[in-house]
């Protein structure tokens, strides 16, 4: 960031708001300052601090792909103080953004491999960034599989994109909802993500698995991947912990010795196994 004061956010204008699911919105944000827009760069997996001045900051990933220039997108669920204030913002309003922070998915190392994306609920946004990144460089990868689940059909985010991905012959998309969350015309799977993954049974051969979801889903997905033959170093996930600064100073997001904000948020299964259960 150009500003020597690392706490000062970029001013971003909300260009477009999409209602993804109940309580979940996507903002497309454009830089107010042209020079900042040109100089801004990020990579898949990074996050930022989004803020409404006078209310506070909130941490979420950048949900758009770094291959799409000129804007960034974020998707958030309205839960706390800041997300509520963000949710009541309108198109054309100015909000703050600091970032990008954190490490990235090693997407360059995945060239020539199969990719399996496994996501649950509101954890698709951090993965959407890397999915689009991979799709925009589609020739670099072999098979791409996406397993995505949510509690109910309404809770599935990016419905239009799911439809688009589902229609593409070069992607295998499996969507699922928790038992009881289906609608009469639901065509996807019914069941929890780990069991659906077990049914889909992607080959572990030359494959990278990227997992993101609530702690309970992660807990049950890892054993399934292990059963399918995935080695720890071929599994990636992104962690979330409460953050304030985003750059390793405020002292709260660490998991053992690792700070989610600077050493993460992306961790491989191998790294994750070395971390204490503090997330």
């Amino acid at each position: 960031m150009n500003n020597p004061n690392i706490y000062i956010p970029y001013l971003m204008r909300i260009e477009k708001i999409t209602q993804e699911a109940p309580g979940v919105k996507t903002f497309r944000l454009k830089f107010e300052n042209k020079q900042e827009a040109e100089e801004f760069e990020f990579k898949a997996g990074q996050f930022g601090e989004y803020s409404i001045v006078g209310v506070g900051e909130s941490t979420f990933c950048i949900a758009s792909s770094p291959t799409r220039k000129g804007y960034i997108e974020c998707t958030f669920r309205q839960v706390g103080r800041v997300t509520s204030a963000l949710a009541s913002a309108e198109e054309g309003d100015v909000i703050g953004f600091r970032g990008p922070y954190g490490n990235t998915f090693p997407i360059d190392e995945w060239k020539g491999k199969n990719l399996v994306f496994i996501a649950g609920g509101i954890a698709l946004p951090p993965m959407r960034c890397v999915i689009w990144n991979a799709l925009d460089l589609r020739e670099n990868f072999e098979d791409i599989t996406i397993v995505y689940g949510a509690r109910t059909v309404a809770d599935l985010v990016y419905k239009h994109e799911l439809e688009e991905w589902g229609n593409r012959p070069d992607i295998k998309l499996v969507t699922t909802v928790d038992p009881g969350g289906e609608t009469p015309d639901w065509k996807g799977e019914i069941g929890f993500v780990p069991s659906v993954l077990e049914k889909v049974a992607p080959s572990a051969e030359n494959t990278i698995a990227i997992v993101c979801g609530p702690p309970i889903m992660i807990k049950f997905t890892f054993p399934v991947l292990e059963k399918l033959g995935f080695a720890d170093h071929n599994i990636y996930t992104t962690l979330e912990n409460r953050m304030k600064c985003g750059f390793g100073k405020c002292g709260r997001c660490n998991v053992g010795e690792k700070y989610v904000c600077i050493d993460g948020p992306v961790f491989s299964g191998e790294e994750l196994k070395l971390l204490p259960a503090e997330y």
Partner: protein
Amino acid sequence: MQIDNYLIRQTSLEKLFNNLIGNGKTVFAPQASEKRILFEKVKAFSEITDNYLVTTNAAKSVVFPRTEKLFSYKKTKETTEITDASTEAVPEVVLWGTRPCDAAAFIPLTDTFNGDYPDILYNNRRGKVYLLSFSCATCDEYCFCTSVNGSPGNTAGSDILFTKLSTGDYLAEVITEKGKKLVAENQTLFEAAPEEEKEPNLAKVKTYFNQDEIQAKLQNLFENPVWDEKSRACLGCGSCAFVCPVCSCFDIQDEKHGSKGTRLRCWDSCGFSLFTLHTSGHNPRETQGARWRQRILHKFLYMPDKSKVAGCVGCGRCSRVCPADINILETVTSI
């Protein structure tokens, strides 16, 4: 850097103080009141006490205020105007009467606020602080600086370290460029170095443990009953962190009045249950034991691993103020 030694007469200290004030510097020094001794802004030499072991509060607030403006803003119909707080002038501050442990604390503190993301607010302040420390002639059962690579006559961190000699005059060790500048400005007050040795005039602080050994032991101690046992009485307040000269965890908060407001950084403590609480209700550090572990590991393992310096200087403040008498030395030695 070469340390220059001088003698400064007891009577010259006051002159030095007056010169500093005369040069427009703000001086913070230990000031005694009925209930406490605090680093406070002083105007006259007579306000300073020299009858103290360590102050109740740490000197860190001079570089890391408990509430600090990051920027202020004004919302207009069209956009938001932001005024950077780091461009505001900060005064030249002399910290008079810091102990060697206090001065040493500025080293890890500066580490935390630098690295890949230098914090200009901190650095602006730090750049304007002169540390005039006084060696310790006394200590108590809470002191353990010698266990964390410090000592009652440690020069690390200070610009000038004064040690009271048997004559009542002081040995002045001038450690940094800043210190040399002060000496140059007050040339007449600094005389040729005394004959007397410094060592006999220092407190004898018992060494309870070795920081490097503790660091090694803590590597594999994440799951251990000691955390729950030693923190059982913990009430979950933040007093230990707030009096600690090294603790620098903070919170970012906004305050607004109508269309104007400020974004602030304010002290926070890993002892608070809210510190790591997710909005979802999930808390990675659910119990007070987990929070106590974080405090110990952060200071004695994570920080020395990252920056070679422990996050504890052995001043013992946290143990002295703890309303439940939880003693950091006791926890560490029990490991």
